[in-house]
């Protein structure tokens, strides 16, 4: 029950961050910061999973997350450099980080199958939330076409992650 609750609360909390982004339309510098931050959070969670989990599926998934989010973030860094945009910290990024710290603290207390389930459930909810934010706020708000395109590619990648996470969660 606890992991489910954890995932649900993570979704609620991440949701709060997204609502804030909708309140004030973010600019490209803020969007870049939010997207990059969201990626870093998932890499950190995956690294924790690689440290704690012994489950083959969970570990493979976590490796996929590190590999893909690192590649997307490298692409994002190269793009902001090219566009001469300096990513700008903002309330949504801060809220994402804060909630992630809470999730991380909860995950750290779990071990074995309980950890695996909580991690996988959280990955489903996290990707759902980030994908929702990309679709409803970040992509429509992005003004630079190259940034918009990268966010759209990101959304496609992360939708795949969400489905992959759902498969992993179901297999546990």
């Amino acid at each position: 029950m606890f992991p489910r609750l954890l995932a649900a609360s993570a979704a609620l909390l991440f949701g709060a961050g997204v609502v804030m982004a909708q309140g004030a339309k973010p600019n490209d510098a803020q969007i870049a910061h939010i997207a990059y931050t969201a990626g870093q959070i998932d890499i950190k969670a995956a690294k924790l999973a690689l440290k704690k989990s012994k489950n083959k599926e969970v570990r493979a998934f976590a490796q996929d997350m590190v590999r893909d989010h690192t590649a997307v973030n490298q692409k994002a860094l190269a793009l902001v450099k090219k566009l001469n945009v300096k990513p700008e910290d903002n309330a949504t990024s801060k809220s994402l980080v804060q909630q992630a710290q809470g999730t991380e603290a909860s995950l750290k207390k779990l071990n074995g199958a309980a950890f695996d389930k909580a991690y996988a459930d959280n990955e489903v909810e996290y990707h759902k939330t980030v994908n929702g934010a990309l679709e409803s706020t970040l992509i429509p708000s992005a003004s630079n076409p190259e940034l918009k395109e990268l966010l759209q590619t990101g959304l496609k990648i992360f939708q795949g992650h969400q489905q992959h996470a759902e498969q992993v969660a179901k297999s546990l």
Partner: protein
Amino acid sequence: MAPKPYLVATCVIAAFAAPAAAETIRIEMQNLGYSPATVSAHVGDAVEWTNGDFLAHTATARSKEWDVMLLPKKTGRIVLKRPGEIEYYCRFHPNMVGRISVAE
């Protein structure tokens, strides 16, 4: 000088006797998909994937017979050894699925 008749004859025979030349079937990995996703081939043909995405991909047979890992912008190939329907996917992105129909 005209070619000697027997030489021409030898070439013609060789051309008929040789089995159909093996082909290389090229598949692009782009935007998290295989393009084309379905191909037809013959035993002895090679399949060559090129990864056009900025993410790493694999072409992995469901049968586990082969597993080609491709970093961004890289190319990898296999040679088809036997006939049959092969389904393959990307281990990193399980939504990516492709099919090869291999005839004798």
